[in-house]
């Protein structure tokens, strides 16, 4: 009896010891920033033990945690924080470096946040912005504030402050602006199209290279119809325009056309016959003395042979060009605002000889109306923050669009077909990418957003292996049509921070699946998703129960006769009754607490062959395919 009463008196909260930060499931720092950081830098961090989440969550920047706890659904998914530990700079003689990043002498330890003092509003920052600097000791905190500004706050006062950075809704709001930026880049390139003709090859000069050497800067060289066996180097701002069918044919060595001047323009050309070396050697073309952590990648990736190689040249234009590639089609390296329009790259016959169709290395600009087929990576970007790829068509490659360390990009309106690995593959944890309005068909994996604060919307992902593979955090995935895939969406990120809402799942073998990690609730602000098969016995157009695509019965509702009847068993209802109440402790599953009756995106669905399968929830006798 005493033991029974004792069960109710004893406190179940356990105090946990801080974990090594590398062992936490962490967020708040792009991989690029992490790699790029000097080893001497010690960023402030927090680690949080939540009541309902069995992994310790690490945050770069105490403010990252403070911001996360304010997001909708955070407490529902994680429970409340049992303990919070923060970096303790007391006794480490902390100072700020040239970037205002904190540097400590030795390894800072951990302090319980509730006992710590925080310097708020000082000069200190992380790669993500201003940061709060914690100390276990008040005097140490005061000394830091004296040296670097800011005020002292206790934990409870710090909790009152509001911290906001651009989240995935800001990325959504940015899409239109980014289209306008792209329009502006294209409009700015008009000046390159309209340069006066100064030299006509064959009349004023014998070869194209001779014309390049002679023509005044900022003029156009006109190349008449014909095949030219030449390798070109352009080191002044010139426009080279093909007039008719102009083919420039290299000798099978090196890059056919190399440009190193700003505002170089190549219009109306066909290029063939480059060398087939995929990796390059130092020195690379152009004027370039940067020595970054990705130097080796730069030489290996951007130094290879290509039809067209534009290096350290800003505001270049490549338009109406066709490249028959032997290694890479077009390489643009260290360039601001390059514009690549209406170009076609035919990949080498053997895909393994290919590097990339269009390769952008530190080259944030616009690629639009490009066509790349049958290669390795159709469009590849490395650290091209703000890149825009739109209205392009890629087919039959290994990867359609491949982003490495590229944040703030916009991939919009692309038509991506039959990629053997992935349609759009975002790697290396970048931030704030917008992936919208794309149609991706028949890919092994359609779309893989990773990184933080991605915005994935209005895409049609059809007829592939896995439609969406969600490796991202804090991302908004909405208004997509995911149809006809083996697995519609597969969430593999362990942190349940994504919002997956207002998407339509139709005709997938299994609509959604999840890897390690807790139960993910794909319902936010009263909105869920449309799941073909989720059904209702109500006639008011709402689905009267939760839908869990990972449950053995629900996942068969749209394709197995009898499943709808079994799903209505009171025993199942009884078990499901409280399912959403402790999501953080459940494993590997997905549930939608408010599935919708009708598709959210009828216009998008209508353009697919899956429209007639998207029956509404009150159709009590579904007709699975026969």
């Amino acid at each position, binding site marked *: 009896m005493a033991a*029974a009463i004792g*069960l*109710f008196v*004893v406190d*179940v*909260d*356990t105090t*946990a010891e801080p*974990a*090594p930060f590398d*062992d*936490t*499931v962490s967020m708040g720092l792009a991989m690029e920033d992490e790699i790029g950081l000097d080893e001497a830098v010690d960023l402030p961090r927090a680690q949080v*033990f*939540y*009541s*309902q*989440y*069995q*992994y*310790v969550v690490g945050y770069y920047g105490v403010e990252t945690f403070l911001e996360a706890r304010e997001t909708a659904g955070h*407490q529902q998914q994680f*429970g*409340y924080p*049992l303990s919070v530990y923060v970096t303790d700079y007391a006794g480490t003689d902390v100072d700020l470096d040239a970037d205002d990043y904190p540097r400590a002498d030795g390894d800072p330890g951990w302090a319980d946040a509730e006992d710590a003092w925080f310097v708020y509003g000082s000069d200190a920052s992380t790669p993500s912005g201003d940061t709060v600097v914690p100390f276990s000791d008040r005097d140490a905190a005061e000394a830091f504030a004296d040296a670097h500004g800011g005020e002292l706050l206790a934990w409870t006062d710090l909790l009152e402050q509001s911290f906001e950075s651009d989240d995935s809704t800001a990325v959504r709001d940015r899409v239109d602006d980014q289209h306008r930026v792209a329009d502006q880049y294209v409009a700015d390139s008009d000046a390159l199209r309209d340069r006066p003709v100064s030299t006509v090859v064959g009349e004023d000069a014998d070869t194209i290279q001779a014309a390049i050497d002679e023509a005044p800067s900022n003029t156009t060289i006109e190349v008449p119809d014909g095949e030219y066996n030449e390798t070109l180097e352009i080191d002044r701002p010139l426009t080279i325009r093909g007039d008719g069918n102009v083919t420039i044919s290299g000798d099978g060595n090196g890059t056919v056309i190399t440009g190193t001047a700003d505002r170089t323009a190549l219009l109306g050309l066909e290029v063939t016959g480059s060398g087939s070396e995929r990796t390059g050697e130092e020195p690379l073309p152009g004027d370039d003395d940067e020595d970054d952590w990705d130097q080796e990648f730069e030489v290996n990736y951007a130094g290879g042979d290509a039809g067209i190689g534009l290096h350290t040249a800003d505001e270049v234009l490549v338009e109406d060009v066709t490249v028959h590639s032997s290694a890479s089609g077009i390489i643009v390296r260290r360039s601001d605002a390059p514009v690549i329009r209406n170009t076609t790259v035919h990949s080498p016959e053997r895909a393994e000889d290919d590097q990339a169709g269009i390769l952008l290395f530190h080259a944030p600009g616009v690629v639009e109306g490009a066509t790349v087929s049958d290669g390795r990576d159709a469009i590849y970007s490395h650290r091209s923050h703000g890149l825009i790829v739109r209205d392009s068509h890629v087919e039959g490659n290994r990867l359609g669009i491949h982003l490495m360390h590229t944040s703030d990009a916009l991939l919009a309106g692309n038509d991506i077909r039959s990629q053997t690995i992935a349609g759009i593959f975002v790697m290396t944890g970048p931030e704030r990418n917008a992936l919208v309005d794309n149609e991706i068909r028949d890919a092994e994996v359609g779309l893989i957003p990773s990184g933080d604060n991605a915005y994935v919307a209005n895409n049609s992902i059809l007829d592939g292996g896995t439609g969406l593979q969600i490796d991202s955090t804090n991302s908004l995935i909405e208004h997509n049509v995911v149809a006809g895939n083996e697995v519609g969406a597969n969430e593999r990120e*362990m942190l349940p921070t994504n919002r997956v809402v207002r998407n339509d799942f139709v005709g997938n073998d299994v609509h959604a699946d999840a890897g*390690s990690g807790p139960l993910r609730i794909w319902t936010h602000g009263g909105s869920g998703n449309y799941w073909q098969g989720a059904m209702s016995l109500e006639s008011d157009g709402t689905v009267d129960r939760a839908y869990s695509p990972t449950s053995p019965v629900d996942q068969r509702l749209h394709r197995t006769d009898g499943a709808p009847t079994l799903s209505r068993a009171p*025993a*199942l209802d*009884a*078990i499901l*009754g*409280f*399912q959403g*109440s*402790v999501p*953080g*402790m*459940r*494993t*590997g*599953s997905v549930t939608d607490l408010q599935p919708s009756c009708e598709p959210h995106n009828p216009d998008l669905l209508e353009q697919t062959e899956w429209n007639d399968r998207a029956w509404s929830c009150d159709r009590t006798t579904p007709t699975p395919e026969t």
Partner: protein
Amino acid sequence: MAGESTSSESAGVDTAERTDGAMAHERPNASRTFRTIVGRELRTVARTRTVFLLGLALTAIVLGITWVGGGYQAGYLPTTVDLLTPLELLVPIVAVAFGYRAILDDERRGELDVLATYPVSPREIVLGVYAGRAIGLAVAIAIPLAVVAAAIALTGDTTVGVYATHEGADSPILFGRFVVLTLLFALVVLAVAIAISSVVSGARGALALSVVALVVLLVGLDLALVYGLAEGLIGDADLLNALAVSPLSAYRGLVLETTVVVAGGTGPQVASPIASLIGLAVWGLGSLAVAVWGVGR
């Protein structure tokens, strides 16, 4: 346990067969009478094969629910949450099965009349019968839950090894609370069943009244609360206490308040533990009082 039942058996023989000897003695002390009746009840329970069947079925169902809900990997609290609603429905049925004929059978076999010739009060009879059946019922319910707890403790967790993990608010203590509350709930419903068995006069009547009682308990009282709330008979401020009127709601509220809420954090209060405990106590003690009255009739 085995030793206890042996001693009860000899005590049972005492009561049943040596009536003359007993008459000759002084009134036996109260605790001895009580032990005798409890022992007799335990023997009855142990001899009834359907009780084992019931226990096995309950074990299978509880394990099945834990498996369907993924509870083995998920932990104690998610399992508690999965089991709560099914047990709300199953526990009353099992409890009624344990008790609805307990006193009726004694009456029909004439044992009550025999007992009436002893210096044993109706109160002692009812408490003895109740305690005996309660022990059997508690065992039948505790074993499946203990098996589940063991399964959760033993099956390896599915966490990804490279990351640091912790238990969060999950704890066997929470499951222990759930078990204790479930037993308490079962004992209250058993008291209701004993009361039914004391006021009816035939097996058919016992069955009918038991079904009525189950319908009222499982559905009726909670629906009455909903009706009262909808019609304004129960004010928003009174709901927390009004919940105690329904044993199901009282049990549910206590479980949520002492387990799920511990991990959930803030939100509206789910139950008033004191009111719920009082509600359960009133149902339990009231039913036993009815049973005493029924036996004395």
